[in-house]
């Protein structure tokens, strides 16, 4: 099978050649430890700080508000746990949502075991958090609100600006997990009243193992990783210089190409969604139709199961992902699909396809034709479909 269509760009992305090129000298030549005194190494400190400026510029932040981490998961863990630790004597209540990434949900559950109370907000049928729900959940002891910028599974973009405004009016810290949104849509931390923001390099054609947490000046969270004075004493450990350089390059690239790239992705995505909904019966689109990440399509095909679908797609050279239980290692399908109100059996038959700018219309045509064939085939062996058709014909 020569065809290879990587339609799982929300899982990770290809590292852009210009990113790799920018990183290489920091492995082979400029390998000095930025903390060393001699000039050979000290210039790496400058390189790290230049990336900080690029990233800060992309968010409307100041360079000294950017703290490099080993990725989005670490940034999420840090934001929640360190906020709880630093502000725990002020209050012990945290507000988040039911559709967060597990980096947030599992950190929140950990904090519950430490005696914190967490409110997990419901979302509407498109996966949107209602700002009025956020407001209603606020208590005198609420210390943090954490709502993702955009959902990783269904692509819904949340009303972050409104939620941030509510948080700030009440004097509550506001964190957002922007791992999926950063580099895909414009973000400004001041306009959206964001106090902390998590992001990751490998979701925007940067390297894996690098990310950052934006921490607004004045937010008093402390170090989560101890053992050195790096990152203004807030994140110990020798800087991942090649990773940071790669991340900076990827951010610069993402900002530079955003308009053109996402315009193309939106057009292709809408074409794909249109054809799938039109040509495959008993199919629905999950997530908000308008407020949606440019490259995300998420479908549910009734009467079939997601893992079977993924294996069949793989045999045709198409990489996708599913919220089915079988792909999660548990018996429950995706918490996000359940939160938007899908019944279990429909959630099991979900498929997420996430594009990149390299695709063309003919690739989408291949995907649709392949999907039509596979869905038909799986339905032909589905007892659910058999029962449904018998009912229809009665």
């Amino acid at each position, binding site marked *: 099978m020569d065809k290879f269509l990587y339609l799982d760009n929300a899982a990770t992305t290809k590292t852009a050649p210009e990113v790799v090129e920018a990183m290489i000298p920091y492995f082979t030549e400029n390998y000095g430890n930025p903390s060393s005194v001699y000039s050979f190494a000290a210039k790496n400190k400058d390189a790290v700080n230049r990336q900080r400026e690029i990233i800060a510029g992309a968010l409307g932040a100041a360079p000294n508000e950017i703290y490099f981490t080993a990725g989005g998961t670490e940034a999420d863990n840090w934001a929640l746990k360190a906020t709880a630790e630093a502000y725990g004597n002020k209050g012990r209540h945290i507000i988040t949502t039911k559709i967060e990434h597990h980096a947030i949900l599992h950190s929140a559950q950990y904090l519950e075991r430490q005696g914190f109370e967490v409110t997990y907000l419901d979302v509407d049928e498109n996966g949107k958090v209602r700002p009025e729900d956020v407001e209603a959940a606020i208590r005198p002891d609420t210390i943090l609100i954490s709502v993702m910028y955009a959902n990783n599974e269904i692509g819904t973009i949340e009303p972050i600006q409104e939620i941030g405004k509510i948080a700030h009016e009440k004097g509550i810290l506001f964190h957002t997990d922007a791992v999926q949104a950063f580099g895909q849509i414009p973000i400004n931390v001041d306009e959206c009243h964001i106090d902390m923001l998590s992001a990751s390099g490998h979701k925007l054609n940067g390297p894996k193992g690098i990310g950052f947490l934006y921490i607004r000046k004045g937010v008093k969270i402390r170090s989560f990783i101890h053992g050195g004075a790096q990152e203004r004493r807030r994140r110990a450990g020798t800087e991942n210089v090649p990773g940071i350089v790669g991340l900076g390059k990827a951010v610069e690239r993402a900002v530079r190409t955003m308009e053109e790239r996402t315009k193309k992705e939106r057009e292709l995505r809408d074409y794909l969604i249109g054809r799938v909904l039109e040509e495959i019966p008993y199919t629905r689109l999950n997530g908000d139709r308008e407020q949606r990440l440019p490259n995300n399509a998420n479908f549910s095909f009734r*009467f*079939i*199961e*997601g*893992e*079977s679908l993924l*294996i069949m797609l793989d*045999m045709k050279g198409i990489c996708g992902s599913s919220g*089915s*239980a*079988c792909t999660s*290692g548990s*018996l429950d*399908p995706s918490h996000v699909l359940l939160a938007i109100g899908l*019944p*279990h*059996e429909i959630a*099991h038959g979900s498929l997420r396809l996430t594009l990149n700018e390299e695709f063309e219309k003919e690739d989408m045509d291949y995907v649709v034709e392949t999907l039509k064939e596979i869905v038909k085939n799986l339905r*032909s*062996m*589905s*007892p*659910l*479909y*058999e029962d449904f058709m018998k009912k229809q014909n009665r």
Partner: protein
Amino acid sequence: MYTEKVMDHFQHPRNVGEIENASGVGTVGNAKCGDIMRIFLDIDENQIIRDVKFKTFGCGAAVATSSMATELVKGKSIYDALKVTNKAVMEALDGLPPVKVHCSLLAEEAIHAALWDYAEKNGIKIEGLEKPKSDIHEDEEEEEEY
């Protein structure tokens, strides 16, 4: 993640379909958990399984175990078919990942449910056959063997 045999039975499932006026039909599992198996048996007057077909909603392992289970009972007497355990199905597939063991249990259960249906229709009692559970997942924790 899957063995070659599992992939083969998933890609080329044996005995997919339905049998009209089947001697026995059994459906087990539930859609909530993501897998449902339905087995159709055609049993002759000597109590030999002449033909068997299945339909399955589920993951790759669910399809493969259904396919293998039908292969293992085809041509056997109902008593020999009763002895086809989930272990036998798993062994015939060269193993399953631990999280997929419940699929093989479902296959065994589906065969039993179809045999139960056959026994009820014909007013006979098959020694060693118990009434199938409506939902196999109720106590799978105890039954899973790793």
